[in-house]
Structure formats: C-alpha cells, structure tokens
C-alpha cells in the first residue's frame, strides 16, 4: 500500500480528538460538538438511506422526539443529561419499532412523503400540546458549565457509529441491505427476510438521533419545535451523506467534515444565504457527483483509504477473532 498509512491517520485523528478539549478554545469544543452530532446523524441516516436505500426525510422527527423526551426529563425531574440521553434513545427505539412496521410497507416516494409528513405532524404536536412542551416558547434548561463531558460522550457515540458501519459494510448483513437497496423483490426471492431487516435498520437508525436530540438540547440549553424538528437539520444530514458517498463507511465522515467547515464559514460570513448554499451543494452533488467524494477518490486513486483496505482490515480482524 503506497501513500499515507490509514492506521497512522486514524491514530493521529484519535489523538487530536482526545487532546482537543484540553487545549482547544470554547469555540473549538462547541464547533466540534456540533460536527460530531451531525456525524452521528449522518451515520444513522446512512444505514437506512445509504445501505437499505430508503429515502428517509423523517429522521429529524426522532431527533425531535429525543430532544423533547430528554429535555422534559431534565426539566421536570432533574435527570442528568447522559441518563436523559439514554432515556431519549430508548424512547426513539420504542417509537421507531411500530412506526417502522407500518411505514416500511411503503416504497419509494410513498415512504419519503410519509416520513416527511410525519416529522411535520410531530412538530405540529409539539407546538399544539403546549401544556406539555411549552409550545412555541420552548423549554429552557439549566446551562451546562463544562462542555467537555458532552464532547466526549458525543465523540464516543460517533466512534461507535463509525465502527458499527465498518462492521456492517464487511458483513453479510450489509450485503443483504445493499441487495434490498438494489432490488427488494429480488432480495426477497433470494430468501432475505427483507421486512425484518428493514425494520431493524429503521429502528437502529432512530436510536442515536434520539440520543443526539437530547444532548443537542442540553448543549443549546433550550429547545423549541422549530429547533427540534428543523428541516434544514434534515437537509444538512442528508447532504453530508450524499456528498461523502451514500452506503460507504467513510462517506458520512468525509461529508460531515467538509460540510461542517463549509457551514461554519457560511454561517459566520453569509448567514442570509446559508440555506441556499447547502441547497446548491446538494444539487451539484446530485447532478455531478451522485456517488460522493469517497467513490470519486477511490476511482481516481488519490484516496487510498477506501473499501479494499477496509475489506482487508476486516478480514484480518475476522481471522483474529476466530
């Protein structure tokens, strides 16, 4: 293997991630937390959207559910933020299970529109049931003095998501999901239990966003319906996966890194055209680079950290395990 050593890259990244909160400014930590939250969202979306191929416009719904479950627990009962996040994750899974069983019977545009509508229903409920959620005024949480524990928690979750995606990409399960993406009826006829796998993937991809929603609320110290169910959160997440490469291990990572930096620059300098710029990026990616940066890099050879390497790493890990 010529060029850069991927393990060295990963090692340096890990050291930077651990050292950063102790040397970085508050701004750096704050920015990193946002980046990592988006990274987790992108990896979750990648499972259902990238691998199983279901266009999921409702992930932000689970993010919002988590945000409200966590915030309400924190606000009314004083539950610590990590326990609240855990409860939010469980709530996300409990909501996703029956919902997935129902919604995943729909295909293609029906699923997309159904989930899109569902996120809006949830937002309407959050606004409408103002005796519970505080409605448009929102809920104000006690601000946290130290962001570092949050940073480490989110970083750990992001790392686990990366690891799980890597395992998934090298497993029969991942291949089965790809088969569902390419042709669901054919997959079914080959004996793949498509319904069970789809629902499982849907639930799995709802857990982490719900936890992130809860943590995001603590991080902001505030939650209201437009923040919890923000459509541009959804768009940014999908844009990250699309830009990096859907259905790849490194796609969400690359996409989240690139787009977070771009977002930050846009927010700082041109906040009034921020959304349009993200839209243009998605549009350009769809038109000219639908397979994403990672695939482009692997094809042209300037990105060595690609699928073949991960395959060989996984093979070695598999041998070591057996």
């Amino acid at each position, binding site marked *: 293997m010529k060029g850069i050593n991927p393990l060295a890259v990963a090692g340096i990244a890990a050291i930077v991630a651990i050292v950063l909160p102790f040397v970085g400014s508050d701004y750096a930590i704050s920015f990193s937390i946002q980046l990592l939250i988006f990274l987790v969202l992108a990896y979750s979306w990648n499972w259902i959207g990238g691998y199983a*191929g279901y266009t999921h416009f409702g992930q932000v719904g689970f993010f919002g559910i988590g945000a409200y479950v966590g915030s309400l627990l924190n606000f009314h009962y004083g539950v610590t933020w990590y326990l609240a996040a855990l409860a939010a994750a469980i709530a996300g899974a409990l909501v996703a299970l029956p919902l997935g069983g129902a919604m995943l019977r729909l295909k293609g545009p029906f699923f997309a529109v159904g989930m899109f509508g569902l996120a809006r229903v949830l937002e309407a409920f959050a606004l409408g049931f103002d005796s519970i959620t505080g409605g448009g005024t929102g809920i104000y949480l006690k601000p946290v003095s130290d962001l570092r524990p949050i940073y480490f928690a989110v970083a750990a979750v992001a790392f686990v998501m990366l690891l799980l995606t890597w395992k998934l990409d090298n497993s029969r399960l991942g291949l089965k999901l790809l088969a569902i993406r390419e042709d669901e009826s054919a997959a079914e006829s080959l004996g793949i239990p498509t319904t069970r796998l789809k629902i499982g993937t849907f639930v799995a991809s709802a857990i982490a966003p719900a936890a992130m929603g809860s943590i995001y609320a603590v991080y902001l110290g505030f939650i209201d319906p437009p923040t919890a169910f923000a459509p541009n959160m959804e*768009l940014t997440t999908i844009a990250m996966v699309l830009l990096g490469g859907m259905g790849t291990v490194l796609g969400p990572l690359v996409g989240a890194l690139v787009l977070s930096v771009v977002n930050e620059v846009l927010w700082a300098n041109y906040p009034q055209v921020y959304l349009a710029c993200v839209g243009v990026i998605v549009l350009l990616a769809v038109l000219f680079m639908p397979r994403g940066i990672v695939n482009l890099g692997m094809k042209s050879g300037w990105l060595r950290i690609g699928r073949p390497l991960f395959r060989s790493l996984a093979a070695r890990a598999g041998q070591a395990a057996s």
Partner: protein
Amino acid sequence: MPVADLLVGGILLGGVYALMACGLNLIFGVMRVINFAHGDILAIAALSTVSIAVGLKLPFWVAIVVVPIGCAAFGALIHPLILRRIEGAPLIMSLLATYALSTILVNVAILIWGGGYSGLPGVLSGSVRILGINVSISRLVSFACAIGVSLAVWWVLEYTRFGRAVRSVSAAPELASISGIAIERVRLATFALGTAMAGFAGVLVAPAFAIDPQLGSRFIIKAFAVIIVGGMGSYPGAILAALLLGVIEVFGSYLAGAVIGSAFLFLLMLAVLLVRPRGLLGAGVRV
C-alpha cells in the same frame, strides 16, 4: 357548531389545494418525480402577486396573466437544467434534487421579500351572503378559479391530442416513444404546465391568505396529503380529496385549534398510506 359555515369554508379552502395538488400529480404521473419545490413556487408566485399589485400598483388581473407565465418559464428552465439530467437515476436523487431546490427557493424568497407576512388588502375584499352564510369574496373567487382551471386541465388531458400524449407518456414511456411521441418534449411541457398551475394557485392564494416565504412548506404537505388520499396519478381523486381535506382541516381547526387541526390531515394521510396506499381513487402506480 356552525356546521354549514365550516362546510362551506372547508370546500372553499379545498379549491386551492385541488389546483396545487393537480399540478403536483400531473408532474408525478408523467415524470415519476415528487416535486418538493412545488409549494415554494406557489409561495413565490403569491409574493410576486403582492409585489405586482401593491409595489407596482398594477391591477390584479396583470398578476393573473403574468405570474403563471413566469412560473411556466421557470419550470421550462428547471426541467432541462436539473430533472432531465437525473431521469435514469434512482428515485432518491430526484427527491433530493427537488428538496434542495425547495430550500434554495425559500432562501431566495426571504432575500427578496424578507421573512415577514404580507397580503393583499383591498383586492376582492368584502363578503357576500349566500344561503344565509357569509362568504368572503376573495375565497369564493379563488375557489371558482382554482376549480375552473383544474377542470380545464383535466379536459385538456382527456380530450386533446396533447392530453393523450401526456397520458401515454405517463402510462408507458417506452411505448409512447415507439409510437412517435416526443416524450422529452411532453415531459418538458407537462412540467411547465404543472409549475404554471402552482403559480396560478399562488396568485389565487394572495388575496385570501397571509403569505410569507415559508408558506410553501405549509402548503406542500397538504398537497402531499391530498394526492396520497386521492391516489397518486389520479386526477379526479386529487380534486375530490382536496375538497375532503379542506373540510377536514376546517373542522379540525375549529375543534382542536389551528396547529393540531392541520395535523389531522397528515394523520389521515398516514392512515390512507397504511390501509390503502394507492389512495381512494388511485389505480396503483408503478414506481
């Protein structure tokens, strides 16, 4: 409960939904593309109408003529630039492309018109008494125009040469192509027609509703609900479902407040998706 008032209010509201959903449905039928930007075209058309009538002080009918033509031109521009290039791609690409287009349009609208609400006071104001019910003239006119245009387009689809071409491209693009129909030209014309219908709906919305750049996202989910309840690709289904959902929304808002009332629509949509995904009058669409 003032049942008659609510019923009439609901049906009048349903008219605009019908026009909008018919355009969306037409585009979906012919191109298999769900146009997430449809609502934002409506919002921009409504805002342009306000600018023409209030800003430029031109009569309202100028907007009725100019705005739909402008929207058709926009559609004719978008189709070759974006949609034709991703025709063979997986469905997710067209969904993402129109979703992205929608956010771009919202942002551009905010840049041009600002984020606040505007309206057209003084155009078609006042109300008339019909059968003992007070009906605002603006809502009545917008209902009549919306249903009129929807039915006219339906007539075009059913009884003209162009309409037959549209229906054959919708049912079987390959066979249509073999039969000598220039399917790309039909798709372009259909997309332009669909966006023009959204634009006309926007013109009709302007005197009757408070409008802001976010109006599109509120309308698009209602239009989604309409075409799913009515059946994707079914024209009469969309008109009937629009009237039905208009009535449900008005009754829901009266009973549970505006925010939760509009959520009733989506709950109905989800119920239809689960029980009868093809919709009330849909024939089942291959996707």
